């Protein structure tokens, strides 16, 4: 684009008016063909888990493949203050769109407002921000946790044949992901399986050992447990460990979410019965796609979900073993 303008300028004084007009028209047509968008992303905490590490790699690959994108990739290292200053940096650099993976759904809202006030649209990725920030953002790109909970309820129902008593192990209390998966599960279960009852619900804090302890308590308390729903596979495998130690694993259906490698392997052994496949690469590509659409001025959905399909022993061959 730059060379085109320069070449037009070298025509010199002779047709100055013409040349300027030409430059403008050439420039405009070039922009229409392959306009380059500068997209800045500030991530939550790359390296803290393999999900986020894979996400970053996939994002950079996708940005390199798209010939109309120049990506500025930043990472807040889990630090809210650093993320806020990174948003300011991106505003200074006048990027076309900012993607943010919030370190804190509440604290980043003022920073997002700062960007929007300067005319830079913001896309939130992976985990949504607080209600107060919703009118500000162009779109949220991420997994539909409520849908994931509903999928888990449907798989539980199928595996139990419509009848039974189950327990639920949730994520860390207060986390949006934990709250939404629980809601999705509890709302959907009575619709598909009115004869499946939830005996008890306790948190496992996304921690396999904590979940194992919680399940040991459940096993002592209830003589009959037909199924366990855990809000991720890490906790699901913890519950499986506890049930195996008590010699009761064979009678119990285990359903998780966010398929981890351990869950995938347990499923291959026939000990684990369902999960939800959430690909970090898909998460990253969806965020970039949404941001490009926003930059091009297309109308985008406020909630731009990517697909997180059910994975069961029957269809697990279609999925690669998760990297995390």
């Amino acid at each position: 684009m730059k060379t085109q303008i320069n070449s037009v300028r070298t025509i010199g004084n002779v047709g100055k008016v013409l040349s300027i007009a030409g430059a403008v028209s050439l420039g405009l047509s070039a922009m229409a063909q392959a306009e380059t968008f500068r997209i800045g992303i500030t991530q939550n905490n790359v390296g803290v888990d393999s999900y986020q590490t894979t996400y970053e790699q996939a994002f950079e690959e996708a940005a390199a493949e798209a010939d109309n994108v120049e990506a500025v990739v930043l990472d807040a290292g889990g630090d809210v203050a650093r993320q806020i200053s990174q948003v300011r940096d991106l505003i200074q650099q006048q990027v076309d769109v900012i993607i943010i993976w919030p370190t804190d759904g509440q604290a980043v809202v003022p920073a997002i407002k700062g960007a929007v006030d300067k005319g830079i649209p913001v896309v939130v990725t992976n985990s949504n921000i607080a209600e107060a920030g919703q009118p500000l953002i162009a779109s949220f790109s991420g997994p539909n946790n409520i849908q994931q909970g509903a999928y888990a309820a449907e798989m539980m129902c199928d595996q139990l044949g419509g009848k039974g008593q189950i327990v639920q192990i949730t994520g860390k209390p207060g986390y949006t992901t934990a709250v939404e998966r629980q809601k999705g599960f509890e709302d959907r279960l009575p619709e598909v399986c009115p004869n499946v009852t939830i005996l008890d619900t306790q948190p496992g804090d996304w921690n396999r050992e904590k979940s194992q302890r919680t399940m040991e308590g459940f096993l002592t308390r209830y003589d009959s447990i037909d199924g366990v729903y855990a809000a991720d596979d890490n906790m699901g495998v913890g519950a499986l460990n506890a049930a195996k130690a008590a010699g009761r694993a064979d009678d119990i259906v285990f359903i998780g979410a966010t398929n981890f490698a351990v869950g995938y392997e347990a499923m291959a052994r026939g000990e684990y019965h369902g999960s939800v496949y959430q690909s970090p690469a898909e998460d990253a590509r969806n965020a970039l796609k949404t941001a490009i659409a926003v930059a091009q001025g297309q109308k985008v959905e406020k909630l731009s979900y990517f697909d997180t399909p059910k994975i069961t022993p029957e269809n697990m061959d279609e999925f690669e073993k998760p990297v995390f």
Partner: protein
Amino acid sequence: MKAWVESLKSGLPGKDVSPLQFFGKHGISVAFVVCVVVFSLASSKFLSADNFFTVVMQASIIGTIALGVTFVVIGGNLDLSVGSLLSFSTVLVVDLHDKVDPGMAIVLMFLFTLLIGAVNGYLIGYLRLNSLIVTLGMLSAIQGITLVYTGGKNVDIADQENTWFAFFGREELFGIPVPALLFITLGIILQIVLVKTGFGRKIFAIGGNGTAALFSGLRRNRLVFSTYLLSAFTTGCAALILGSRVMGSQNNVGEGYELLVLAGVILGGTSLLGGSGSIVRTIIGVLILALIQNGLLLLGYPYYTQWLVTWGVIIVAVWLDIAAKRGKLLSTY
């Protein structure tokens, strides 16, 4: 154990001992009995040998760490790094299990765990830096090391069914789960070390009055150093139990455990200012925390009641402790 029984006898309410003093001295044992009785009456599932061992087993990870930390606290310092040290040690032993072999993995894990304990001990014992700052910094530093080591991935043992590593967390000896056995055995040994050896008495001395101890010719730097080695060692033991029980590890599996450990130690009546405390009482403190968690779960209470009840029990325990020392329940000035 024997010393404890004797001290219990001598402290029974008689004409010389007021009820307040009795509760101040033995409130923790009373609380333990009260917890057991209340939960037994409320839930038919509670009072069974199986459930009892489950509780001790569940307490064993926090409890084993708390044994070493009790020495640190009696010596007048704190150790907040044990939570992330637990994550690091568990990740290490689980990861090396498949890469070298289980025996070597355990040796290497203890080596690196003790090395970190030695760094803490050197900075606090020899350089005389503030233990809160050193171990708080170490908490994040170890978290960083763990993340660099794993690259953010969870680690798992591939063949979980056929490894003798399962002994530490999954098997039973004489009908008792091995984690519970390890915890209690280590507790008895360390209680003897604390009350029957010169080393134990010196730890009390440096925590009670460091300057006086120094003038009496005690090597404070070396003693403080050794308490951190001890807390690293017990954290390594806890990592064995945890790794074997779960057969895998997350990078943050011990996140927040340092506060649970400290809660158990405080509940056991060990003074945060140093100079007083007991391993047996730490064990009871940790068991009470586990009993509350187990009992309330069996009764079907939502999780947050555990937090509230735990908080309440700690406040009452600390209050009784202070009240007994000043001889009345309320402070008049």
